[in-house]
């Protein structure tokens, strides 16, 4: 078992991306969070056998990625991390739902495969958009936006603290794992037993640190009130961003664009 330091560094990279200065980055975090929310609602509200109608939605994450100057390849790699979970959720559909729904040439496609593709596509769309959101807004910006939009303070603080100490914890865990590895000489280092004790120690250290952080907070006059800095920058740009994209999502949701375009092309021939 190896706790790698690589993973969290990649998270740090996501943060680095969010410190760029592009039109998308400059938008108020709230505008982006609201738009992503509407996007997600539109995408997940489709009937479970719809696949083609989802395709136009890809324009939103792509627009964020291109305008926000984000490396597509990096985001796809991050996406690959969640892919196994998505596959696990959808994989049983083709086995259970065998009713034939579509005939392409001599191949019959069952409802199960259609809904599997639909799940896959929706997940890829929403996760990619979320990644683009964080990469253009920063995790802190997203938390601040949620907070300003009325998410209970307890949750936003929980998220912020988690994010802040994730790096410290990963460092600590990484150091302990390295120390263990260096003394286990290619063996498995006492196997599960020493691993359990390592994790236990990490937990105890976490308690210890929590105590210290609380002391630090107290010594600076903490009395249960938490102030987050608010950057208020809601202007025309934000309103146009939300309204424009939302209209497009609603259009995509109620008009099957690929079928419509297909209809025009084939219809013109008839």
């Amino acid at each position, binding site marked *: 078992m190896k706790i790698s330091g690589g993973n969290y560094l990649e998270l*740090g990279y996501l*943060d680095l991306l969010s*410190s760029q200065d592009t039109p998308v980055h400059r938008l108020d975090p709230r505008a982006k969070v609201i738009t992503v929310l509407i996007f997600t609602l539109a995408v997940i509200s489709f009937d479970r056998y719809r696949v083609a109608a989802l395709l136009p939605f890809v324009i939103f994450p792509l627009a964020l990625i291109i305008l926000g100057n984000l490396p597509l390849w990096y985001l796809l790699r991050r996406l690959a991390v969640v892919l196994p979970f998505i596959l696990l959720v959808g994989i049983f559909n083709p086995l259970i739902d065998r009713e034939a729904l579509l005939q392409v040439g001599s191949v019959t496609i069952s409802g199960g495969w259609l809904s599997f593709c639909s799940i896959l596509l929706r997940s890829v769309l929403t996760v990619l958009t979320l990644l683009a959101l964080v990469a253009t807004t920063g995790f*802190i910006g997203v*938390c601040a936006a949620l907070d300003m939009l009325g998410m209970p303070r307890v949750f936003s603080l929980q998220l*912020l*603290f988690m*994010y*802040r*100490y994730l*790096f*410290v914890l990963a460092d600590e865990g990484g150091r302990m794992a390295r120390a263990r590895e260096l003394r286990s000489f290619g063996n498995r280092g006492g196997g599960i037993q020493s691993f359990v004790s390592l994790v236990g120690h990490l937990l105890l250290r976490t308690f210890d*640190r929590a105590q*210290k*952080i609380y*002391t*630090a*907070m*107290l*010594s*600076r*006059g*903490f*009395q249960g*009130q938490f*102030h*987050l*800095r608010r950057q208020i920058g809601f202007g025309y740009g934000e309103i146009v961003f939300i309204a424009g994209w939302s209209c497009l999502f609603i259009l995509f949701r109620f008009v099957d664009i690929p079928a419509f375009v297909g209809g025009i092309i084939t219809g013109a021939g008839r």
Partner: protein
Amino acid sequence: MSHHLVEVEDLCHVYQDGTSALNGVTFRIHHGESVAVVGANGAGKSTLLLHLNGYLLPRSGKVRVGDFPLTKATLREVRHAVGMIFQDPDDQLFMPTVYDDVAFGPFNLGLPAEEVEVRVMRALETVQISHLKDRPPYRLSGGEKRRAAIAAVLSMEPDILVMDEPSTGLDPLARRQLIALLKEFHHTKIIATHDLDMVLDLCERTIVLHGGKVMADGPTSEIFADDRLLATCRLEKPLSMQGCRTCSAK
């Protein structure tokens, strides 16, 4: 100016597991003094510091900070007067960005937003890291983290600065810069440390703790000249007072 005074009288502390950390510590620190608290591991330094900002309340003995005896009722005033800089900056920098962290104290003091802004920028300029204000703390180097932690305390404009091992984990240049920075402060300073050379540079007075008691309290130069005292307290002369080994070997 009695509000810069720190007075500890016959302070004892026993931890819940029965370890007795302080056995009757008494001293008095005046306005503007810079005092080092030195001693071996487990001598009681950390426990003493935890009393100075009211994290631990005296069970027996007294602590007095400025005009206030340290009790539950005066915690707010005491914590305002005493700025505590912790050993590990990661424990202290818990907010998402440097700016937010430095603003944390002033906001808790109930200051209006414009005043907070002024204080934060002033504190950041004092420690020369205003360019880092929007960075998350985990992206800073050790020296920068230390400066940010100091700014986070300065922004509350305390009268007394209490520091736990401020020079650990710093490279020689960062350490030297820190010493120069602390030298400029006119606060009353209490520094717990093993870095005796830094003590020589910064503190005119030294309190030696040993086994939870004050073994010596006096001018730094006299204390570091007392070889027997240092040996009993598991200490050593600062390197700069030891003479050059290379030269004396010849």
